[in-house]
């Protein structure tokens, strides 16, 4: 199974139409990767689908960087008993 980081980057690349290799942990979804308003919503929705979790809307949308997303999703998976590869 791929790690959370790999899966987050893969979803991000797919939604934002980027190459996975271009995505770094410190990248901001909006400032560096160019996510627009609707794409931010799509990212959260796709993360939920990818990991089989439900995220709090306001908390999820306040996540700024790829690294923060990895950390946030890891926490939610643990809280909701979803198995992941760290």
């Amino acid at each position, binding site marked *: 199974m791929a790690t959370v980081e790999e899966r987050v980057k893969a979803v991000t690349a797919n939604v934002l139409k980027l190459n996975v290799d271009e995505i770094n942990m410190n990248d901001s979804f909006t400032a560096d990767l160019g996510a*627009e*308003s*609707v794409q931010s*919503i*799509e990212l*959260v*929705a796709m993360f*939920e689908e990818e990991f089989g979790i439900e*995220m709090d809307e306001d908390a999820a*949308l306040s996540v700024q960087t790829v690294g923060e997303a990895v950390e946030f999703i890891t926490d939610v998976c643990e809280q909701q008993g979803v198995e992941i590869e760290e």
Partner: protein
Amino acid sequence: MGKVKKKHPLVDAKRPNLLEDIFPYSLPPMIHLEGPVIENIDGKPVEFDFGAVKDRPIFISDTTFRDGQQARPPYTIEQMVRIYDLLSKLSGPNGVVLQTEFFLYTKNDRETLDRCRALGHTYPECTGWIRAVKGDFRLVKEAGLKETGMLTSCSDYHIFHKLKFRSRKECIDSYCEVVDAAFEEGVRPRCHLEDLTRADIEGFVLPFVDRLMEMSQQVPEERSVKIRLCDTMGFGVSYPGAELPRSIPKLIYKLNRECGVPSDRLEWHGHNDFHKVHVNAATAWLYGCDFINTTLFGFGERTGNPPLEGAIFEYIALKGDLCGIDTMAITELAEYMRSIGLPIPDNYPFAGRAFNTTRAGIHAGGLRQDEQIYNIFDTAKLLGRPPRVAITDKSGADGVAHWLNEFFGLKGDDRINKIRVHKLARWVIDQYDVEGRLTAISDQELEVKAKEFYPDYWEKYKSGK
């Protein structure tokens, strides 16, 4: 930079102060007035107590069937009876819309009046409207009306250029003959001082009104002359310091306190030629005129009259209470008027299709969190019109979420959150970014997509409807 005269320390708070005494939401925003207000008249300061309006018996009168009808093809009898019925519902048991006036000249005019009265409503009371011609009182008497308006034009534009009188005295004598005829017939005359805001107030209007007041002493109070202040061309000015004849405060002062016409015999009739029509009417209330004359949706000669619905919400704001008014009738009236071809612009306050529709995503975001942020009052409760969002490329996911929740009728925790609307939000964005669309997306288009993307919600909330 100006010199600081007073420091204003921050009053920090952990809980919001929503000023609910002024913005109760269940009612329109209140207008709390502090007095006294000073107007300099003839070199002397004169006090007006605006706060008294809360307890003063003020009223709305209606001229939808007279001035309102001068701006459009005639209504059918059935249409007028339906409108009158709804006006009565709006007015309520206290008669806030106290009177409405009718033409009396044709068979249809008279049949309309009879059929409206046959409905048995107490309010609005039916009054007539005639020329200042003695013979016309026969029509008023035959119709069994207690009061009629009559044209008594008072600017020299009208006296000399329209009516061709040879002198002001000849004009006044002629008008007074007709007033006498009204008294003889037992009808209360309401003298319409046409073109008042372009008249010689000291030289003609006040002497004429003095004479009317003297004449009124011959008759019982209920038949004494009422005065309608007609701002025929919309020249009236509401703010203090304006000169006569355009100053509404000074006009009312002169008639009310110099000529002695009681407030309950003064009525303001405005026109909207300079976009001042509603505030001018409300100003007349504050300065001592008990009646303001209005039409539904402001529809009237040229640019129109004070809108009745605007007066209704002003009334509630000044009184602090609905006073028996059924505001839902405004929406019924708007729907009925549209159905018979009266155009009401989409952005028209209280009645337009989009009066409480927001297009900006950031506003939709506010609405989604708390509708009070971008809604003027509880428009669902008072008008049956919840706030809406029109969907364009500027609506964002917030706007789409608001639309979707309203469409499915979801409230509180049942509402679909922003994340769940991503498919519909993406479709909306692609309409503009990919398809090159330049128009707003209609409800019908969104409904098709809502069914496609949210079949479970559709099944639960829409399939049975």
